[in-house]
């Protein structure tokens, strides 16, 4: 059986979280979900490999967790919101992760974001019906 093709599959650089990703990555997402609990975060930090074993995270998933390979985890089906529970307490912000996904520095990533707002005030002034500071 193959996974059904989806009309979002061809969007570049985008890993839409659907059954095809959620199904094989259930254990890793379950591990990441436990990071809502401070005690689980501490247990993981003390021995990441043992925590993977306990949560049934094996093979390439386990390797990627131990290497903190966030893009690899995402490609294999880790959900971005659950992945953030691993990144953020380790001092890796969502913007750091965004930069890592693109292979650029966080400063470059942030600058690219800021550039999206260039000329905003003029755009809103032209539309006329927006609050504009």
């Amino acid at each position, binding site marked *: 059986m193959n996974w059904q093709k*989806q*009309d*979002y599959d061809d*969007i*570049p*650089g*985008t*890993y*839409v*979280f*659907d*059954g095809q990703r*959620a199904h094989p990555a*259930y254990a890793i*997402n*379950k591990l*990441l*979900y436990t*990071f*809502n*609990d*401070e005690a689980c*975060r501490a247990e993981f930090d003390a021995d990441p490999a043992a925590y993977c074993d306990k949560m049934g995270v094996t093979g390439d998933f386990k390797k990627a967790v131990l290497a903190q390979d966030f*893009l690899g985890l*995402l490609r294999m089906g880790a*959900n*971005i*919101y*659950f992945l*953030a*529970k691993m990144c*953020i*307490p380790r001092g890796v912000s*969502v*913007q750091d*992760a*965004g930069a890592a*996904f*693109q292979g650029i520095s966080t400063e470059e*990533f942030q600058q*690219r*974001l*800021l550039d*999206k*707002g260039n000329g*905003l005030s003029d*755009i*809103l002034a032209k*539309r006329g*019906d*927006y*609050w504009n*500071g």
Partner: protein
Amino acid sequence: MAKIIGGITSSHIPAVGNAISQGLTQEPYWKRFFDGYEPAKTWLQQAKPDVVIVVYNDHGLNFFLDKVPTFALGCADIYENADEGWGLKPTAPFTGDAQLSWHIAQSLVEQEFDICTCQEMKVDHGFVNPIRALYGDHEQWPVKAIPLAVNTVQHPVPSAARCLKLGRALGKALESYPEDTRVVILGTGGLSHQLQGERAGIIDVEFDLECMDKIATEPEWMTQFSNAEIIRRAGSEGIETIMWLVMRGALKDDAAVLHKHYHAPISNTGAGVLVLDNQ
């Protein structure tokens, strides 16, 4: 009878919660974003809703992936915020209105929206941050709140058209509630953003503004788009924008547009505020 006095939209970016907690709202990066909420805050102070219904998506606090309801309604007296693993400080708990919730649930099911009812429901930043941006922080919140969670996390996700229909059913549910309760509906999330993958960081200002304009006055326009098309334009997380349609569907077609505020970027996101008066 219950009365829907209006609707407000707001993004629910996690960093907004930290900015409020750390007193940064008047810092240069944040000032324009937060200042644009002032007319919405003033309107809320005058409109004095008894209850806000917050349409949002859970990001892995209440719902794990073992069970993912497409639509879920809080039917409890109290809703607690909690550690999401992201370093956000939990807020005071929110008081619900269980009788109203159960009325809504019954009416929605009668209207063929088979919603999941939740007697325990932790509410995450998606629910909390719009309330904090609109009301400030409180130990005792000045308004009751009911969570209505939409799955925008694990596809298949409901369509824009389905969300608009849910809003219309929600409107009918509220109109048939016998108590004199004043309700405001908050549609949260969006606008364009993508957190994941090599395409992380996209923001589409033109699409965001078009969505805001059309959701305000002609929400059917959004229903032409498949979820794949919305993701292509607005990003994988920008799909959250469909939740604004739940708010919009509950209001009259000719609800008055009182305020439109857009800012980009804030964190990774294009952020929008609409205030619609339904009276």
